[in-house]
């Protein structure tokens, strides 16, 4: 599957054209095409081994494509070594130079470009100020916390004023509160650098939703789905996208009728109405119900009989486990709402506009 807007490759900050990467015969990337527009934040999301980091490394020049082309601002850079590409990159373990101070780390790329010393000092100070590390210029990386090291790594990548910033799971080594804080900082940083294109690799869908203008969902070296966070969440195309992106309940149904944007499906003898996004669904699709989209004790037209098998308090929500026929379901209720007793028979319901039909594969 191709990423959207392939025609923008000439104006895009980055464009990959049917790039394949093989490691000793094993395919790590399989004919991947995508583009990133100036100012766009594109998130590559997927499990380990899906090829998302390989895309980033191919863009940076650390992995040579077996076939295909990589374009930077309309220029073919496939054969260029990393040092000639001028891209900023931040990796999971920060990779700060341990023998250099924070200021020397941030100025590393500027020294490599042989810039005058006053200009280097000025740009280093500005970048450290940008990431809130102005008072740490003389320290060594070992004297900084993980979050501070990550800020320095971002400042180092931005100091060379790259057109594209590549971020390879930059927050995964940090604890949850720090991760949330840095995610906010990344968003505000991007707001201050609106022309900067960002390619962000993660396996965390929360980070993907929070940061991405568009998300590319990867699977086994290929693009499995691509779209805005909302479109991927609300109308996933297939089982993989629905399950990886937001823990969907997927029920096997039989299509009975389809009229305009509404479809009638049969689940265990019950007729259910679902809004369809576009086109005609497959004859045996899956009904995708998000946990928070299901009501308990419904009186509307869409009704599913189910038995409650468990209730778990999770802070802001209560996770209710139920079984409809032979199919397990997860339901999220607000914490203040009374939960049914375990073993109770209930009627579940949903709004046709909050469910969708997805393909099996």
């Amino acid at each position, binding site marked *: 599957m191709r990423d959207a807007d392939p025609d923008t490759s000439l104006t895009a900050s980055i464009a990959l054209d049917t790039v394949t990467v093989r490691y000793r015969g094993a395919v790590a990337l399989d004919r991947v095409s995508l583009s990133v527009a100036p100012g766009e934040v594109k998130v590559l999301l997927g499990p380990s081994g899906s090829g998302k980091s390989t895309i980033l490394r191919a863009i*940076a*020049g*650390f992995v040579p494509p077996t076939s295909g082309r990589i374009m930077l601002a309309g220029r073919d850079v496939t054969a260029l*070594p*990393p*040092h*000639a*590409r*001028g*891209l*900023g*990159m931040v*990796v999971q*373990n920060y*990779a700060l*130079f*341990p*023998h250099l101070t924070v200021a020397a780390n941030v100025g*590393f*790329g500027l*020294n*490599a*470009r042989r810039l005058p010393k006053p200009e280097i000092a000025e740009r280093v100070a500005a970048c450290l100020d940008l990431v809130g590390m102005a008072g740490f210029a003389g320290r060594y990386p070992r004297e900084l916390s993980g979050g501070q090291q990550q800020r320095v790594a971002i400042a*180092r*990548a931005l100091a*060379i004023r790259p057109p594209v910033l590549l971020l390879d799971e930059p927050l995964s080594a940090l604890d949850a509160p720090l991760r949330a804080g840095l995610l906010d900082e990344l968003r505000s940083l991007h707001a201050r650098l609106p022309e900067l294109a960002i390619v962000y690799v993660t396996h965390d869908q929360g980070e993907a939703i929070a940061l991405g203008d568009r998300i590319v969902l990867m699977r086994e070296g290929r693009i499995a789905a691509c779209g805005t966070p909302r479109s991927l969440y609300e109308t996933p195309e297939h089982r993989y996208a629905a399950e990886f992106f937001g823990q969907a309940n997927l029920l096997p149904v039989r299509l009975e009728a389809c009229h305009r944007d509404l479809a009638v499906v049969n689940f265990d003898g019950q007729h259910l109405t679902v809004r369809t996004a576009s086109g005609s669904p497959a004859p045996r699709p899956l009904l995708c119900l998000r946990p928070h989209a299901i009501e308990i004790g419904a009186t509307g037209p869409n009704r599913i009989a189910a038995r409650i098998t468990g209730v778990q308090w999770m802070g802001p929500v209560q996770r209710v486990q139920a079984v409809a026929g032979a199919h397990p379901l997860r339901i999220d209720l607000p914490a203040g709402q009374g939960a049914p007793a375990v073993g109770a028979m209930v009627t579940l319901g949903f709004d046709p506009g909050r469910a969708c039909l997805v393909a099996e594969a």
Partner: protein
Amino acid sequence: MNGTGPGAGRRWRRAITLVPFLAAVFLLLLYPLGLMITAAFRGAKGWSLAPALQVISSRVFASALGHTLRIALTATILCLLLGFVLALLLNLAPFRGAASLGRLVDAYLSFPSFLIALSLTFLYGNAGLMTALLAPLLDGSRQSASFLYGFWGVVLAEVTFYTPFVLRPLLAGFQSLDPALLEMASGLGEGPIGVVRRVVVPALLPSLLAGGGLCLLLTLNEFGIMLVMGAKNVITLPMLIYGDAVQQFNYAGASIIAVCDAGLSLAVFALYRLGITRLGAWLAS
């Protein structure tokens, strides 16, 4: 505290277990060293520095000291350069068989040094293969092509033998070098030479210091290679000691030179320890 409790008993037992170790150190190390120092500074008229000063001020001693230092420093520098280049090739441009080569280096460290000298004589000696091949390119004389018995021949043999002593700590240093650092440096715009200069060399500085220090200590006291090669024009301190003690039965003279040689080694070792300590303190600060 009356010194009779269980703690005092433990201390006594610990002290008693140390006795065999201390006796062995005394018998095998301190006693012979003491004899050597006595032989160096005690003559028929009692203790005196005069014989030592006479030996140290001689042209033979100055020449041997000069050769020792020149050969050791040159061989160490060349070992460091060659070892560093080999370590770079093995790690940054790995080739088929690189792992086997690493294991071969480990095996090589177990070889005796004179074996290398002996094998080099088959190549560069008077009747050596390379000498025969090089002779027509020089002035036709086999003797002139045989550089093995001069300064550079000894250095070649020592570099051949001691490079793995530098290579081994460098390979270990590379193991702990995060490859992401090299990629980041390259991504930030630094070319291959700049990456080596600004990232690899600082990261491997402790390994370079350890390998170089060890190599310098060993080359200062190299005897097997010198003995087998018989390089008459480059007599070093160990060869001078051997000549005085074994060939001329001048034990007093040999002892004086040996004390100087030991002092030189200790000074180098002290410098090495100081360097390592300073570097360690800087890295830990």
